[in-house]
C-alpha cells in the first residue's frame, strides 16, 4: 500500500499551493452553485479590479455552466465555485435556474417537461 502523501511531497505541492492562492485560502462559498448552473454577466455592472484568476472566470462564464468554467479555466471545481461566488456577491454575475431542493413541484414538472420536449426535437 502506498503511504499517504506528506505536505513535503513534491508530487502534489504545486497544485496545492496554486489552488490555495487563487482563493486566498477559502474553500467554501455562501452561494449555492450546482455543477450545471449557468451564469450570465450582469448588464451594466462595472467590474472592479479583479485578481487574474477572477478576471479569467469572469471572461469565460457568460452563458456557460459552473462545470464549463472549471474545465475552460483548468481550475478545480471547488476553486471555480469560490471565485464565481465572489463575482455573484459583487453583482457582476448572476446565476440562472436549475432544479434544487427549493424548486417547487410545479417548477420541477415544468423543467422536466421542457427538457423532454427539447430532447424529442433535438
Amino acid at each position, binding site marked *: 500500500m502506498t503511504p499517504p502523501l506528506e505536505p513535503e511531497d513534491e508530487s502534489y505541492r504545486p497544485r496545492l499551493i496554486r*489552488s490555495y492562492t487563487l482563493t486566498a485560502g477559502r*474553500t467554501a462559498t455562501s452561494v449555492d452553485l450546482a455543477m*450545471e448552473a449557468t451564469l450570465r454577466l450582469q448588464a451594466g455592472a462595472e467590474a472592479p479590479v479583479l485578481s487574474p484568476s477572477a478576471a479569467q472566470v469572469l471572461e469565460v462564464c457568460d452563458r456557460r455552466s459552473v462545470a*464549463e468554467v472549471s474545465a475552460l479555466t483548468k481550475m478545480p471545481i*471547488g476553486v471555480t465555485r469560490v471565485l464565481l461566488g465572489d463575482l455573484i456577491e459583487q453583482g457582476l454575475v448572476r446565476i440562472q435556474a436549475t432544479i434544487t431542493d427549493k424548486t417547487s413541484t410545479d417548477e420541477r414538472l415544468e423543467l422536466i417537461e*421542457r427538457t423532454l420536449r427539447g430532447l424529442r426535437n433535438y
Partner: protein
Amino acid sequence: MDFETTKAQRAAASTKIVIAGGFGVGKSTLVGAVSEIDPLRTEALVTNESEGVDDLAAVPTKATTTVAMDFGRLTLAEDLVLYLFGTPGQRRFWFMWDDLCRGAIGAIVLVDVARLDESFSPLDYFESKGIPFIVAVNEFDGVPRYPAEEIAAALALPAEVPIISLDARDREQAKGALVKITEYALMRLRESLTVNAN
C-alpha cells in the same frame, strides 16, 4: 421578438442527467455521441479522508489527489440547456456522486453484460437516494444479446425500472436513452403527486 412575452419572461434554465456505470462501459462514448461540444473535463480536489472535496470545507493541506468528471452539453432551446455528467468510476470517489446527482432529472446506468457486477453499486446508490434511473445495456459488437428479463433478473431490478439496449456510439440511440429517462422521471414525479393527493 418583443411580443413573445411568455417566452421572454420564462426564466432561462439548465438541467442535467447523470451517466453511471463501470469503468470502460461506454459512459464517455454515450456523452460524446449526443453532446454538441467535445466532452469537457472538470476536476475536484480530493482529501486524504476521501470524505470531502475542496469546496466542502476541506482543509487545503489535506488535498492529495484529484478526481475527474467528463461532461457534455445539449442546447435544447434558446432558454434551456441539458448537461450530461459521467460519474467517476472508482468506488473511492463516491462522495463526489452526491454533488453530481443533486438536482439531476435522473440517471442512466450503462451496463456491460460481460461485467454485470460492476453495475450493482451504481444501482444501489440510485435506489437508496430515490433518484429515478433506467438501465441501458451497451451492446458492443460480438457480445451475445440476452433478453431484457434475464438481465433485469440478474441485476435484481425493481419491476418498474425501464431497461433498454443501445449502441452508445449511435447518436439517435443515445438520444433515445435520454428521452427514456426523462419520460420515466416525469412519470415518477406525477405518480408521487397522485399519491400525495390521495
